[in-house]
């Protein structure tokens, strides 16, 4: 009797401890969610994933910021004769592109993939903190997100998973505005007006951001190419992406969007080495690679004024002009028409020579 009473007290206190611990954990989670809600700023990526979910696309462009500013999917799609969605996002690494494609395939009948490769993303994977990853942060809850989480986030700084607001904590000044925005019908209906954008930028829909010519020239330039820094994991995800496309019978082409020719000239050896590396990889994977840095000047006449920074992000007007050419040659490559080659210089060196001659 005595011992059973003691056992009961022990059970009661165990129960109390478990309730207490659970209450504490719940409180922490609630505070964390409140901070996320009040601090994390609404971004374009969330809207783009929503557009992708509508399921009307049969061509998808993957890549990073050069693609999002440089490619108007409506113009590219007209050339390709496909409904095209531009899923290029700043900070989109190869692993992010792979999981974006996985998500796209759930809702769309994709039969063409254009993968725009910016070499900088091959060499700086290990230099960027997970907290800055807006693709992962905007990725909708899905079965793929579990795999994406394990491969991309689990081994990284715990704040990327548990305390997403860390990267936005200095937005505490706009907390009221952020909460109001998130409670608005515009936010719920994925209206781009809720996104804090640069005053020179306009979101044109389907992943294209138009930057007008009033934006002052930014001095930021490209990272240097360094083959020893190429992330094996990133190369692995390019291969995975290609094999996923082949498995699903999807045509795929690699591209690199044109950058400021002055920067290509300045960093000629790096651009040449990066071009050789990606070309070799594309050849191994039996994928056509179109490096638009090598497009002939008589096809696409460009200079520094077409780009808002030294790194080579395009102004909107240049992007619209470029998108038409881009679509035309990507279409030829996808159709197996090799005459597109005549529109390109044989190598970066020839392009630089032509640029200097102009």
């Amino acid at each position, binding site marked *: 009797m005595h011992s059973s009473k003691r056992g009961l007290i022990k059970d009661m206190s*165990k129960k109390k*401890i478990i309730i*207490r*611990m659970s209450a*504490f954990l719940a*409180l*922490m989670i609630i*505070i964390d969610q409140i*901070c996320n809600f009040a601090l994390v700023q609404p971004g374009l990526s969330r809207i783009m994933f929503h557009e992708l979910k509508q399921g009307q696309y049969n061509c998808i462009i993957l890549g990073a910021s050069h693609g999002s500013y440089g490619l108007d999917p409506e113009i590219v799609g007209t050339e390709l004769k496909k409904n095209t969605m531009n899923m290029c996002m700043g900070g989109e690494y190869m692993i992010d592109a792979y999981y974006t494609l996985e998500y796209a395939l759930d809702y769309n009948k994709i039969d063409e993939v254009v993968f725009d490769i910016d070499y900088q993303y091959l060499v700086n994977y*290990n*230099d*960027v*903190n997970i*907290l800055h990853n807006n693709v992962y942060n905007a990725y909708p809850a899905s079965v793929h997100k579990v795999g994406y989480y394990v491969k991309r*986030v*689990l*081994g*990284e*700084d*715990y*704040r*990327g*998973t*548990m*305390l997403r*607001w*860390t*990267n936005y*904590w200095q937005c505490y000044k706009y907390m009221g505005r952020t909460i109001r925005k998130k409670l608005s019908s515009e936010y719920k209906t994925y209206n781009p007006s809720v996104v804090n954008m640069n005053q020179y930028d306009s979101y044109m829909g389907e992943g294209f951001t138009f930057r007008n010519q009033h934006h002052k020239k930014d001095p930021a330039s490209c990272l240097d190419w360094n083959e020893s820094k190429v992330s094996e994991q990133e190369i692995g995800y390019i291969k995975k992406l290609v094999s996923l496309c082949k498995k699903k019978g999807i045509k795929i082409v690699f591209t690199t969007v044109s950058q400021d020719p002055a920067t290509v000239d300045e960093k000629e050896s790096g651009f040449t080495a990066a071009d050789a590396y990606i070309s070799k990889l594309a050849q191994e994977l039996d994928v056509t690679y179109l490096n638009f840095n090598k497009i002939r000047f008589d096809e696409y006449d460009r200079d520094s004024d077409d780009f808002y920074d030294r790194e080579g992000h395009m102004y909107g007007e240049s992007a619209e002009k470029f998108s038409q050419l881009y679509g035309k040659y990507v279409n030829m490559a996808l159709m197996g028409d090799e005459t597109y080659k005549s529109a390109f210089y044989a190598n970066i060196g020839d392009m630089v020579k032509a640029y200097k001659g102009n």
Partner: protein
Amino acid sequence: MSYISAGFLFTIALGALVYYLFPKKHRWLVLLLISLLYYTSYGFSNLVYVLFTCITSYIISLKMSEMEDKVHRKRLLSVVLVLNFGLLFLLKYCNFMIGNLNSLSEVFGRNLNIAKLTIKFPLGISFYTFQTMSYCIDVYRKKTEPERNIFKLLLFVCYLPQMLQGPIGRYERLGLALSEGSDFDYRNIERGAVRIFYGLAKKLILADRAFIFANNIFYTPDKYSGVYIIAGILMYSIYVYCDFAGGMDLVIGASEVFGITMDENFRQPYFSKNLGDFWRRWHITLGQWMKDYIFYPFSLSKACQKLSRRAKKRFGRVYGTLIPICLSNILIFFIVGVWHGASWKYIIYGLYNGLIIAMANILKPTFEKTVKLLRIKSNSAPYRVFQIVRTFILVNIGWFFDACSSASGAFKAMGQTFKNFSLKVVTDGSLLKVGLGVREIKILFVGVLVLFVIGVLREKGIDIREWIMKQPLPLKWAIYIILFFIVAPFGFVSASTEFVYAQF
């Protein structure tokens, strides 16, 4: 997965849940499973080396325990030591030796050009090799019984929290505690969680921030001189302490969640009165290992005793006794230097510490006489502060070898300290151009101040963690929540999540 990754924290949380759901006698199995899973997340090849160490130690320790003859036991011990330290040497030091041989051959006009090995260095090998060899030596000395279950021994070798950067545990405490398992006590979880977040605060708020400044200075020491170098080395001392001690807090805290108490590795090292004292407070388990398995056997060896007798005849009793101790210290610190890495800078770093401690031993009678002569009260507060500052300076001189990429770079940086020395850079804002802005410096300053206060309290025997745990529930929860949420925004955001000692 680094110790600051979500993966590590989830592994600990989920692991603890499963651990306490299992019956006590099988709990070690849960620990073994999560340890192996965690370790293999760094690559399967790592596991091969761990298994090698475990299997050789298991077989030989069992054989040794069956033998009464000391000579046979010694032979077997030599085999296991040679196998394991040989492997460590091969993986860690072989390329260093090859590099030196190649350089030497060039000096003599014959280019040997021996190819370097291209083997991936297994994580934490220095730590688990030392830990497992201490077990074998203890079995040889009959200080501990051999483990008859190989899987329990495997858990001792690769226990999740400590496998990457120590502390170097002893079988008689850690091994047995792991095998026995622990009862559920929520205070262990509370204590462990607080310790984990204290470690995260040290790493993210202080270490990662200080690293930026120190790295900018010592990456290109030619660019800087005078006060810049002094500021750089002070930042390095914050970085190296907060990184290693923060890592230890994480490790020990994680282990506390499972109810397993590990040996402490730090005890306010920057409050040391002399360099010997510093090494009794810094990386304590390595120092203890060296003392038990090298210092005593070496200083009590026949050769040393013979040397001591001769020295006593020649130099008198005091110095005669000191000579073997000094030699043992130099030997120990040479090994500590080599343990830190395959590079001359670490060897010089070790010898620097060994020689200063040896000199301090030899000059101790002279110091004592001087203090008496000057009528200084050796237990007064100002004298203690003087001792702490003196030791801190000596420690910081040593950090030059750690911070710079080579021994010659370290000497050069030391020389640069005395060039263009101007305190103006402190007031004109020049120091704010080395990678950290005003806000970062302020956070660092407040953080160091908090760390200092906690250190002083600890020196006085006050444990702030225990004090918090005794507070009423609402206050306690408020403190925990503030602690948890303050680390994230004030923590530095960097791409690297690794700890400096995880590479050993």
